[in-house]
């Protein structure tokens, strides 16, 4: 069970975020759900790089080669991913502020300008 649990948690978070995104009644809430979707990618990345009994890939207080290390590559990728997530959130929120000014609502059900 433990050997797949982290992956399943990541899948669960992704799908839960998608559900929230599709059923959201408030665009700010939808962006929050998008952030949840992205949290799934962090969990998956870090879970893939984990190794039983290993320590963090930082040599400031351990002797190089003395202990097994977890994968530093996925951690670097996750760092990138975290920053990307924050920037996308900021940009989408900026757009939502303008939507609220121009349309007077942030409910996706009430936005009907673009269709057909």
């Amino acid at each position, binding site marked *: 069970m433990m050997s797949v649990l982290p992956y399943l948690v990541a899948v669960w978070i992704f799908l839960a975020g998608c559900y929230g995104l599709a059923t959201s009644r408030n665009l700010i809430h939808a*962006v929050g759900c998008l952030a949840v979707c992205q949290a799934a990618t*962090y969990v998956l990345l870090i879970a893939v790089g*984990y190794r039983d009994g290993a320590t963090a890939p930082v040599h400031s207080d351990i002797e190089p080669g003395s202990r097994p290390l977890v994968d530093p590559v996925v951690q670097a990728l996750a760092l990138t991913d975290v920053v990307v997530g924050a920037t996308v959130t900021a940009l989408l929120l900026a757009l939502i502020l303008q939507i609220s000014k121009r349309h007077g609502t942030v409910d996706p059900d009430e936005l009907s300008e673009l269709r057909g």
Partner: protein
Amino acid sequence: MNDMLIAVTLLLVAATATAAVAARDPVRQALVLAVLGVALALLFTVLQAPDVALSQLAVGSALTPLLLLLSVRKVRRRGRRKGRTE
């Protein structure tokens, strides 16, 4: 023991993420997202990823919820002004 700890943190993350989706009010959601950020940071620490944990703590539990709250404030403030003039 370590496995238990990982499993518990994982379930905590899953539960908080679900709660963040279920919280339909954006203010409450922002707060739950801040908790999710802390939970993720905890998970990453347990999984020996202190670098990611640190940035998740800074970005996920401080910056992102702050931006969300500021946006809610702007939208609500607008709504109130509009309500007054009508």
